[in-house]
């Protein structure tokens, strides 16, 4: 661990996707990209198009990242705004959008059934006079319908594989995906109405004020109908409080009976 969270994230990202780490120290990280990673994040489509056409393997680049703004070797300084970092975020989200994973079970168990869960990570974008985001991680048991918040934290330390382990088998979900997702949406609605709505009230108040002002301009003929309509739309875009729900990623997780109770009872299974 270093003090720079972006540094650790980038390190993990490249290792996970099979890029060789050439050098690593406290302050810098040198990575050899694979061809497919180069194509994905280096933004040189013409080069790769050409290489493929010529049937040549291509020469993937190396990247050097640093921890500080004043590095002797140069390299990409990682901080909240680094453009390359944002490319990597996008690539990570795209690659990790969906999954079907089975808990890795080493020793044969008495009960060999794995219970299906739908896990969805959600971004809530609050929009209105002010704006912010919130991440929710929700899990719904597709057999008995238990719904849990902070799902990723609960699963974090567990092991999952894309294939089912020996001597275990996945149970068929009783709740289908569409219905499960609806339950999750309802949960989100409930959650939103339970938190403070001060921001929305403030935004609505402002919306009303602006509307009244605009209408008075219209009725006193200071502006025409066309402008009035256009402004009305723009005022709504700026002030009407709303929440955009975005599913960042999600998938089916099959979890053993033993771990199930663990997941339900403990916030973090560690």
């Amino acid at each position, binding site marked *: 661990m270093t003090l720079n*969270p*972006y540094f650790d*994230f980038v390190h*993990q990202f490249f290792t*996970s996707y099979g890029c060789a780490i050439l050098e690593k120290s406290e302050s810098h990280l040198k990575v050899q990209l694979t061809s497919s990673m180069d194509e994905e994040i280096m933004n040189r489509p013409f080069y790769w198009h050409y290489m493929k056409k010529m049937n040549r393997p291509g020469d993937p680049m190396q990247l050097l990242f640093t921890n500080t*703004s004043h590095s002797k070797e140069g390299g990409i*300084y990682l*901080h*909240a*705004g*680094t453009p390359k970092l944002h490319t*990597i*975020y*996008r690539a*990570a989200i*795209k*690659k*990790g*959008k*969906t*999954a*079907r*994973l089975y808990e890795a079970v080493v020793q044969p168990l008495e009960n060999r059934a794995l219970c299906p869960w739908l896990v969805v*990570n*959600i971004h809530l*974008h609050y929009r209105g006079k*002010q704006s*912010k*985001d*919130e*991440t929710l*991680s929700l899990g719904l048991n597709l057999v008995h319908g238990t719904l849990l918040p902070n799902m*990723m934290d609960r699963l*974090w330390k567990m092991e999952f*594989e894309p294939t089912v382990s020996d001597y275990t088998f996945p149970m068929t979900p009783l709740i289908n*995906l*569409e219905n499960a*997702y609806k339950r999750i*949406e309802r949960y989100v609605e409930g959650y939103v*109405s339970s938190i403070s709505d001060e921001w929305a009230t403030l935004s*609505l108040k*402002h919306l009303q004020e602006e509307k009244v002002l605009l209408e008075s*301009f219209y009725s*006193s003929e*200071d*502006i025409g109908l066309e*402008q009035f309509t*256009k*402004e009305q739309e*723009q005022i709504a*875009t700026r002030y009407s*409080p709303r*929440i*955009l*729900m975005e*599913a*960042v*990623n*999600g*998938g089916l997780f099959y979890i053993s009976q033993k771990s199930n109770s663990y997941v339900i009872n403990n916030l973090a299974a560690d």
Partner: protein
Amino acid sequence: MVEIHPDHTFIPTLRDNLNNPNHLSNWEGFKLAYQAAKINTVPNFDGLLALEHLPHVQFLDHQIEAAERVIHQMNGRAILADEVGLGKTLEAGLILKEYMIRGIARKILILTPASLVNQWVQELNDKFYIQAASPRKKQAAWSDWDVTVTSIDMAKREAHRQEILSIPYDFIIIDEAHKLKNHQTKNYQFVQELKKTYCLLLTATPIQNKLSDLFNLVSILKPGYLGNLTDFKKKYRYEANKQGNIEHIHSLVGKMMIRNRRKDTGLDDSKRIVVNERLKFTEEEQKMYQELELLKSDHPSFTWLTLAKELCSSREACYMSLNQMRQQSNEQTMAVYSKFIEQLQQLPHHVKAKRMIELISETNEKFIVFTEYRATQFYLQWYLQQHGISSVPFSGKFNKSKRDWMKQLFKNQAQVLIATEAGGEGINLQFCHHMINYDLPWNPMRLEQRIGRIHRFGQEHDVKIYNFAIENTIEDHIMKMLYEKIEMFKNAVGDLDHILEQIPGGSFDKQIQTIIDQSDSKGEIDIKLNNLVSYVEHSISERRETS
């Protein structure tokens, strides 16, 4: 109460991918995606996240405050009207970045004078990590580009107009917005038709002549906010004296406009040191100057004035005019001009040119030299070269790439830049901090613009300005009368520009010309100039009291 817009795309995607296991991720990849989303969120309603994203840019306090006010109080529609050189572009970029980070602004249009397009694109990229595109002649993809920088003239062309007007832009920035002060122009109407959610107008001079200029700017941001124009004019004209009325307008406008002044920002760290150099003509030169006065008898006084000013600049400048006059003259008068030209040829190197060489050779510092005449520009370049000093010419008439090239040459190689004009808006030469005003312009604002090229936001040194004038000539007069009395060198002038343009009876330049034209004696010129100066001074103090 709060509407929730659900995401209906997810389950179909998941279903597709479950049938297509290649598209599924492993546990590590799934965790990474979650982490990426989590790191990259905007956790708070308040504050400026952009600052964390841009650690390499040193923002000043007034810029950060301005950005916060625009975003959190003015809700993204504002006029940024800081004085020249306080970094309006940085403020605008910071605000734009914040809206982009918060995910509210995706589709962005920046309208700027054509000469500034490249500078904007470069600055957005270097300072703000924002990739912007600018359309060229045949290549324009307005709908595909997220961030576009272009000029109004380009945008309003038939080929592009309809497409641009059909795009609902999230964010629009208009640089040098004072050019939109007239609501009857095509440009103004075009801007008003644009679809925009958030909008910034940038100008250093929100009021150029009349309060109605400001009215028109506000109307772009909030139509109807100040009533309609006719009523506004009436109210303002008839009740201008009522203090309450003006205050009312001020408070309304204050909700829409941010105006930082140099003196409030503590940005006076880099000082201006102005040295007025009074030089003496050599005997021959003085003699010639006096003989030119003979022309006053049978020529329009304007002729004499031109020649006298030119002689104060260089033999070459004076020669150009004399030669032209000779070609257009009849046989009788030709002799007079020929005699003058001959006399010119006998003159030694110009006293100002010599002084310039002295100043420049004292140090290795870079200098900008401003002159009013092309002929002088050539002469000085040649003369500098004779003394082994490298120089490059510069003129506002150069095209964009030539200007950039000259600027680059000056920055990296040459010691001196010889310019004939302020070179238009937007050329920044902060790396230089010595300036010689070889000739003085008659309008003090033009001098201010010249100085603004180097004494602006980003200048780390004190700026040294030398103003040349020759004793006992028309130049000396101008300097004494105008520049010393209107204390313009001491304060960076904020309000002077309005005043100079509001003088009854034509522009400031014209006033001076008329005065010199129509006066019979030096004494008369003095009195009239004095009157003009005290009028300006009076207006300044009046303004200060009211504001």
